[in-house]
């Protein structure tokens, strides 16, 4: 049987190969047809449309009026649009704290022999990541409301209710509160990713360090950190991208009121409430360009590293 197959193959090797190629092309066509249609229809076509719309004045229904780069000029000359990025700073600082904490927890909970109840702690810190975003918003509206959980905790520590601020209504403070919600939500996911890459470090390194009498802090500083440097920098870049495109938590909790608007909540408001599709598209293009610049820097950075 085998022999026959080999002989057949030899005789018409090139025929078989070209037939194979043809069959592969046919298979690839059918397999990729729908995925590619979806990709083009809902990613690339909207992208082209967005760039096109950004040059028009349009409410989404009526006539489109070509106005060139006026939308961009308006955006860059009116400070109210770029002020939104200031809100992002709260989230950016929040996510750097989050990365630091996630690293510490990942290191503490990586080795179930060294820490007791690791599964419980890991699970408790991680679970918020699985909670529905709307539920997260409501949980924390309840947490921060006057006389709510936070106030109760603080009054039981001796603060009087009158001296406590209105957490969600005080400009500035409300952004801190929202950034904390974001930290609460994503810390566990960060931790699990760091723990995963820590576990992939060669265990000989830990043993050698332990034999040399290194303590946990030294192991963390000299073995874990250098070995997961790449993962940390990727997460830092993701934190920057995440901070400039924050959306869900402020949208659900405050709808951008009292200075909590972010660039994305503002974009959606301009698009779907004020019905200025052109302006919103220009904002979308600016955000996209920013993200692309960050991605480009990230790529350059890692090429140099490697």
């Amino acid at each position, binding site marked *: 049987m085998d022999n026959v197959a080999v002989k057949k193959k030899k005789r018409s090797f090139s025929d078989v190969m070209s037939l194979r190629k043809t069959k592969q092309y046919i*298979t*690839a066509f059918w397999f990729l047809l729908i995925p590619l249609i979806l990709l083009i229809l*809902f990613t690339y076509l909207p992208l082209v*449309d967005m760039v096109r719309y950004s040059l028009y004045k349009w409410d989404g229904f009526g006539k489109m009026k070509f106005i060139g780069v006026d939308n961009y000029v308006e955006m860059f000359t009116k400070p109210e649009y770029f002020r939104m990025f200031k809100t992002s700073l709260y989230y950016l600082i929040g996510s750097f704290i989050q990365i630091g904490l996630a690293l510490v927890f990942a290191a503490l909970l990586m080795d179930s022999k060294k820490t007791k109840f690791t599964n419980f702690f890991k699970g408790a810190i991680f*679970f918020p990541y699985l909670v529905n975003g709307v539920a997260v918003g409501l949980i924390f509206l309840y947490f921060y409301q006057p006389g709510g959980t936070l106030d109760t905790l603080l009054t039981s520590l001796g603060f009087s209710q009158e001296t406590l601020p209105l957490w969600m209504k005080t400009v500035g403070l409300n952004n801190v509160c929202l950034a904390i919600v974001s930290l609460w939500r994503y810390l566990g996911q960060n931790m699990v*990713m760091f723990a995963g890459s820590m576990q992939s470090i060669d265990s000989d390194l830990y043993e050698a360090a332990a034999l040399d009498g290194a303590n946990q802090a030294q192991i963390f500083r000299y073995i874990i950190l250098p070995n997961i440097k790449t993962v940390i920098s990727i997460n830092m870049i993701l934190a920057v991208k995440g901070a400039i495109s924050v959306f869900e938590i402020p*949208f659900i909790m405050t709808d951008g009121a009292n200075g909590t608007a972010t660039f994305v909540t503002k974009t959606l408001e301009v*698009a779907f409430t004020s019905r200025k599709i052109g302006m919103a598209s220009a904002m979308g293009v600016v955000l996209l360009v920013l993200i692309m610049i960050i991605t480009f820097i990230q790529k350059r950075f890692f090429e140099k590293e490697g």
Partner: protein
Amino acid sequence: MAKETKTKVPQNKKHYSAEHIVAAFFKYLLLVISAVAAILPMVVVLFGAFKTTAEFSSTSPLTLPQNWLNFENFKTAFVKGNMVLGFFNTVIVVGISVFLTIVFGTMTAYVIDRFKFKFSRIVNTAFLIASLIPSITMQMSVFQIISKMGLFNHRAALIILFAGTDIISIYIFVQFLQNISTSLDESAIIDGASYFTIYTRILLPLMKPAIVTVLIIKGIGFYNEFYTAFLYNPNPKLAVVSTALFKFKGPFGAQWEIICAGVIITIIPALIIFLLLQKQIYSGLTNGAVKG
């Protein structure tokens, strides 16, 4: 607690010095505080969900409910809050979307990994670049397309938006395929099998672990997705769990005990899945994140 360990230590090995005990004390202190901070905001919501209206306004959030069997709020949330409908719609949308994501994802990954011609690399790059684009700010143009297709206020809008394969599931499948030897494919071809047969009969069954991973992370992602449903399916009859819960902000605005019940209702499925599939969720996240 700490004192007890201290007295025991001297009999133990040398390296359990005072320094170690202090370090251990702070380690557990930090862990306990963090675990409490993670859980407490949800626990107080659980307390609130079992309180009556009068009880809710007269007790502090940290007070335990008087009657743990008071399911009135849950009943109101389920019936008046459209939660039953929300779950029904969510199951349909998430079920079909996850199924399609897996079908399209495995097919795409199969072509990218097994057929080494230029086109498959182009496809790979096309998906990769797509993942860099923040889709949320393109919603005004996506909205126009969905409207033109006549899918506004139709469940199909959510399904096709979710089912568009993303680079993470493709990567998970490609990584998995790379570890399945191509000699399996080769011998099947010699036996006269078509590429479609190889994909369905040989590779799909072998890819089960990767499929489970994608099923879990995508399933959770779609279940938690809010804005897509909010924007494209505002019709109350099409509400999914997140949009149904979001509506609680309006009519139940002053009735926190009902909002609390609604929140708990949405958390329970996530909690059950987490307790059952903890390991797979952790490894799924780590796998999906390998290539940033």
